[in-house]
């Protein structure tokens, strides 16, 4: 029981860390990493709950999320790469050309 609470607390802490990271950091690469962090925090919570309820579907879902995360990062990294080539900067504040 204590383990579960510990794991959920860790998951929450990781999520909060990622969220704050995305919100305050200006570096696109760091923001991506923080987003990964949030994703992993959610996966941790998922696994924890699936242990708690002793069902396998939670564990299976984890792999699905891994695949999605990998695909997502495979697209995000080239975008960031292109951006940095254009401006030689990773600061997201410079990239506001699409604003309304």
């Amino acid at each position, binding site marked *: 029981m204590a383990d579960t609470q510990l794991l959920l607390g860790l998951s929450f802490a990781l999520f909060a860390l990622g*969220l704050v990271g*995305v*919100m*305050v950091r*200006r570096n696109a690469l760091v*923001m991506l990493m923080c987003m990964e962090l949030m994703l992993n925090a959610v996966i941790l919570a998922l696994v924890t709950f699936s242990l708690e309820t002793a069902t396998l579907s939670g564990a299976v879902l984890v792999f699905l999320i891994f695949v999605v995360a990998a695909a997502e990062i495979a697209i995000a990294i080239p975008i960031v790469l292109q951006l940095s080539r254009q401006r030689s900067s990773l600061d*997201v*504040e410079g*990239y*506001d*050309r*699409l*604003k*309304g």
Partner: protein
Amino acid sequence: MNLLTVIVLLPLAGFLLNGLLGGRLGRTFVSVVGCGLPILAFLATIKAVTILQTAGPDAALLEVAYRWASFGDQGFDVAFYFDRLTAVMTLIITGVGSLIHVYSTGYMKDDPGYARYFAYLNLFLFFMLTLVLGRSLLVCFVGWEGVGLASYLLIGFWFEDPAKAAAGKKAFITNRVGDAGFLLGLFLLYWALGTLNMDEINAAFAGPVAPAVSASLVGLLLFIGATGKSAQIPLHVWLPDAMAGPTPVSALIHAATMVTAGVYLVARLHGIYEHAPEASQIVAVIGVLTAFFAATIALVQTDIKKVLAYSTVSQLGLMFLALGVGAYGVAVFHVYTHAFFKACLFLGAGSVIHALGGEQDIRRMGGLWRRIPITFGTFAVATAAIAGIPPLAGFFSKDEILWFALASEHGGSPFLWVLGSTASLLTSFYMFRLLWLTFLTPSRMSHDTEHHVHESPFSMTGVLVVLALLSAIGGFFQLPHFLEPLLPMPAVSESLEHYEHSFVFVAVAVAFLGLATAAFMYRGGLARGEALAARFPRLHRLLDGKYYVDELYQAVLYRPLHWLSDRVFLGLGDRLLIDGSLHGLAAITRRASGRLSRIENGQLQWYVAMAVIGVVGCLVWVWRNG
């Protein structure tokens, strides 16, 4: 054989041929088609008249061309009806019409719009024949509107000149006012009687059971339509302006045929007017007032066509006077004689204008009798005819009108007779004034114009001679007697019965008095006339300004309507209410979106923060309410 349908359709064929092919196939083709088909229609009319004559005095030919609309067991047929009244009108239209077509081949010879001109002229004949031959008022109305259209097209024939195009519009719009009355009368008749066939309407009003509609009201509404088409007060303003069209058009449409449509309508529906003494009274008074006032205006006009235009208005007034006192046959008699002498006068004026290279001001004419003798001779005969000099045509018809204006039991009165006779005197005076100033006084032409004066070609002078001949002898045909089986004469009041011959002498005296006065005033040129005008400057200005009726309409109708449209409908309604509300809505959206678009600042962090705030907000809401 569908003779009547053929009569109507021949000019339409001419319109289509000339309108579609005339421009390509050359002038000879246009002349042959343009003149040939009306002449064929004239011959067909003569054939129809001979058939009618064998059928008896009050018989009628009836031909249903096709069923136009049917609903239930009722419907409207396009049917043609041919009795003696129609016969007279159709003969005038196709006969005088054909002559004027022939004349036009000379008059319009060098005009670039030659084919278009003949196409319009044929179109006019088609609609005019529809008007007089239609059995149903609805078919008649189609023709009625159609001649308005053709008149508009022909008045504005030289549409490059804005004044002429405006004259066309004025004629069309003024006629619309009258047409509103015509339509209302039509609705009322159909509502009350369930038929629009004119013979059935007459029969219904003559029948033992009075129709459930006031004859006076219907009569008045239809008369409003007639005032528009026949240029009676208060809708007379368009006819003088209509002189902007080519002169043969003025002769055909604005003198001989179209403007008499109102007279035809009232005569055709005499069954209504016989039972509508109030409406008849109004018709007579409007008619005599128009005759009188138009004659006074004609006294001071200096444009040869304007004098003739006001004289036409005046003569139409006399016709309505005859209608108003119940002498329908006499009115048609005057339509018939007037068609000859007024067409002759207009065509003569056209010949003068042609000879002088476009000059229309009689102050710069004079001495033309030696130079263009055929035009002078025919013009003189027609002038004497319209003035009422016996034994020319105008004398007979005018004398009878004035006699019935006094003696008819159906509303005749000394007042009508006095005004009518005065109008007749003025007519004689201004017509001889025109004759003297144009032909007889010493020449006042510029040297340049004088050098070019030439007699018109045979196509024009030949027509003039024929028309002058008809103006001379046309009166011997006793048309009212011929029409009496259809259009009975009003009873003559007994106290006057024996004085008819004395009134003939009065009428003759009046005509010669006008002749003598005009000869005295204008024999020596303009001097005496101008001296008289200088002695009564205000009266002269009033007449010269045509009683300021145009100005009155400008002030009373045009300006308030313009103000209303400009300020209320355009300013308040369109700009403020409709545009304003739409612009207001757009401004609100624009301002709101301006505020909202500040959120979209392009900063990822800001977007994330908004998303987080949103998610947190959702969670809080679920937690509070869930």
